[in-house]
């Protein structure tokens, strides 16, 4: 097989000594010096799946063992929240719309749909003879009940807001209307009509999220779901031991069961990345998620061609609290935003400049071109000079340096990034950054209460849509921790939401994003990439914008039993 790392990049992994320095993360300046001195890190080339054109030869045993970095907190699609629970749920359930390996939308539980009333209604034709994994029929009425439950406030679904485009959903979520008022109706046993508040281009993509999965309830729609959930997806859960494993077998009632090659999927929740690695080394798992940054270069050398670094729709950024000094002054915000070289930061903190962010919305979205802030065209010297001038105008200089606090949640990666950023700022500007870390929930509460000055944040999209990133900064968003409030921005988002022409809509969103960047309440640092180890015999996956790899498409190719 082709080994993309070993063949394309001859650069040796960092020496043990320099790795230890990275791991310590204690001296940011030293760290940046290291980065300069070193050849381009090996990670840069690890971004594409190995291309294989050989014929399909299935292994006799079609069993895939995947690690999960946490135990899924719930297998109730409406109540699950973590990405890890999402992986399992996408195997157990299927929405009306599904995704192919590349993330393209394809018919799921609905074999087709018609758009009516100028985009205000979607009529889905459910697959005839659709069944739950226990063999009982899955009818349009089940879908109606599931959608109602998803938006009912009693359910407590964090992702209910994804269904907001549906008629009356917003009022139901806010408790002003009963769930029965939801614009989802069964026209017949296999026709499901969903009415929207207004045309919403991203609506079909929303139906791939677990919040739009059908949930089999015990009795009535207020009942609790079954303990071992019964789903309608390509696999069914047969065994679950909390904190040990989830055993999934192929669901014989799935509509495309004959295309599903895996017979069994074993999910193993393993919290410690070191434990994950040990079990990958001993061949107890074939697919290991969330490889730590500090290990990546060494692992790329240890497992040639098996470490995959794939970008997905997520952005790591610093948020600036605009409701209190010093960041209530836009000049100060802009000065800090324009002086931070995200390329250098990304190199220092992630050992690769590749993920550096220049915009808030990642460039992974094809149709959307992210705007750049006005200072992007300037040279480094010009930008730094401008930043110093802006700070001087705001009253900060060598005599009176800008002091602020940068808060992050406890974690080695966050610490290294914060150190690198503060070092980069101190290098060029009269600033004094105080780093402060807090336990995650404490940090989140302080952020939500807007008690922080500058804070780290990350956003991973649930939809391949720029609006999913930008909506967070609407003045009325519960997730707007920056206290950013700009009527122009709000109006553009509002217009985009009602715009039915996709090109026009994206242009409006780009305009909104350029306001966000220009106002500099966010400083995008880098876009997320997943780091995982996949054994070469696991086939059928492709990179996709949301980094979703349902087991439906995966298979195990014939391979010699691994040498130990």
């Amino acid at each position, binding site marked *: 097989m082709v080994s993309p790392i070993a063949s394309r990049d001859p650069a040796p992994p960092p020496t043990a000594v320099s790795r230890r320095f990275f791991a310590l993360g204690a001296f940011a300046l030293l760290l940046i010096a290291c980065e300069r001195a070193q050849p381009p890190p090996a990670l840069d080339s690890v971004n594409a799946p190995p291309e294989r054109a050989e014929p399909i030869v299935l292994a006799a045993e079609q069993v895939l063992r995947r690690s999960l970095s946490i135990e899924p907190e719930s297998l109730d699609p409406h*109540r699950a929240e973590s990405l890890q629970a999402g992986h399992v749920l996408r195997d157990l359930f299927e929405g009306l719309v599904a995704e192919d390996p590349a993330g393209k939308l394809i018919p799921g539980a609905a074999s087709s749909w018609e758009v009516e009333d100028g985009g205000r209604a979607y009529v889905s034709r459910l697959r005839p003879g659709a069944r739950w994994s226990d063999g009982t029929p899955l009818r349009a009425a089940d879908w109606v009940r599931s959608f109602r439950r998803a938006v009912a406030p009693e359910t407590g679904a964090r992702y*209910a807001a994804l269904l907001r485009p549906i008629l009356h959903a917003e009022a139901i979520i806010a408790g002003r209307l009963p769930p029965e008022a939801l614009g989802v109706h069964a026209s017949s046993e296999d026709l499901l009509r969903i009415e929207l508040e207004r045309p919403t281009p991203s609506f079909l993509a929303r139906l791939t999220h677990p919040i739009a999965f059908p949930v089999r309830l015990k009795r009535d729609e207020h009942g609790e779901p079954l303990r071992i959930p019964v789903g309608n997806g390509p696999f069914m859960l047969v065994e679950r*031991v909390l904190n040990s494993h989830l055993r999934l077998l192929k669901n014989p009632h799935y509509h495309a069961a004959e295309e599903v090659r895996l017979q069994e999927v074993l999910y193993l929740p393993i919290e410690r990345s*070191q*434990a994950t690695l040990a079990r990958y080394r*001993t061949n107890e798992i074939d697919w290991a998620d969330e490889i730590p940054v500090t290990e990546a270069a060494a692992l790329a050398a240890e497992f040639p061609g098996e470490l995959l670094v794939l970008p997905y729709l997520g952005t790591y950024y610093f948020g600036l609290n605009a409701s209190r000094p010093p960041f209530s002054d836009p000049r100060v915000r802009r000065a800090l935003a324009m002086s931070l070289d995200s390329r250098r930061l990304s190199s220092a903190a992630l050992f690769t400049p590749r993920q550096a962010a220049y915009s808030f919305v990642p460039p992974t979205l094809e149709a959307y071109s992210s705007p750049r802030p006005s200072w992007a065209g300037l040279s480094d010297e010009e930008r730094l000079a401008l930043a110093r001038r802006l700070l001087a105008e705001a009253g900060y200089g060598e005599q009176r340096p800008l002091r602020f606090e940068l808060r992050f949640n406890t974690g080695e990666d966050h610490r290294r990034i914060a150190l690198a950023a503060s070092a980069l700022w101190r290098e060029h500007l009269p600033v004094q950054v105080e780093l402060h870390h807090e*336990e995650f*929930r404490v940090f989140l509460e302080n952020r939500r209460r807007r008690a922080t000055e500058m804070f780290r944040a990350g956003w991973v999209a649930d939809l391949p849509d720029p609006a999913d990133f930008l909506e967070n900064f609407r003045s009325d968003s519960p997730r707007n921790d920056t206290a950013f409030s700009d009527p122009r921005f709000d109006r553009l988002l509002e217009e985009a939401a009602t715009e039915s022409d996709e090109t026009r809509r994206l242009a409006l969103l780009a305009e909104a994003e350029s306001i966000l960047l220009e106002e500099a309440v966010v400083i995008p640092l880098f876009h997320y990439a997943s780091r995982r180890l996949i054994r070469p015999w696991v086939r059928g996956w492709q990179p996709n914008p949301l980094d979703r790899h349902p087991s439906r498409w995966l298979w195990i190719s014939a391979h010699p039993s691994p040498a130990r």
Partner: protein
Amino acid sequence: MIRFALNRLLLGVLTLFVLVSVSFALIRLAPGGPFDAERALEPEIRLRLEAHYGLDRPLWHQYLAYLGGLLRGDFGPSFQYRDHRVGELIASGLPVSMKIGAAALALAVFLGLAIGILAAWRRDRLLDRLLMGFAVLAQAIPNFVLAPLLVLVFAVGLGWLPAGGYGDGSLRHLLLPVVALALPYVAAVARLSRMALVEVLASEYILAARSRGLPEIRVLWVHALRPALVPVVAYLGPAAAAILTGSVVIEQTFSLPGIGRHFVQGALNRDYTLVLGVIVVVGGFVVFFNFLADLIAAWLDPRIRLR
């Protein structure tokens, strides 16, 4: 003896009550809540969730409701694992922790005592020095170093045993965790029993026994061992509680589904009921085993009963 036992039992229940109350106050004082996440909740949904879990009521009310639930044997719903109640999580995790713990405890007692007795018998000779050297080392290596080391050698390196997981709960899967868990306790028991034995062996009644011409082995087994066990039992009481209720480090390193993991993870997740539930269980074990140790010590040494 019965009066002594009842006294200790009452004290134990009181201890548990204080423990639950203080823990309840402490965990609720911690900032940040169970529903905080990077994706903040819609306000209405947050209100409903808080109402569902009773977080909207005054704290004293929640406290009384929790105590009432406990008395009925209900640990409440888990905040993090919303499909489960805390009672279920404990019921599924505790047997795993106890199985590994019981094996480790047995190893600690038997191997520890054997080493201790052997060292005391050969005191100040080479064997004693070697055994005690091993014990000091075993006690000094923290298990977050020892456990990964065992994995590295026996799983990754030699490939004899799996690197983690509970599997079907067979010996293959449990060997490394049991050894990693037991080793520091083996060492502690060995050192304690040697020390106590050496001390007892120097006492006057042993001198008297020896002067009557009893063989050394008989002196050791029949006359010295029983009083020498008192400090070992006193140590093993609380230690047994700690071993049986799961080690966070061991369970995380070997990805075992015990209840030890719930303690730390539950606290980080602000899973109030889960953390309290684990505290109640661990506290109950500590109280029970201390009680048991007191009884055994009283049986071993009648002087304790009189105090």
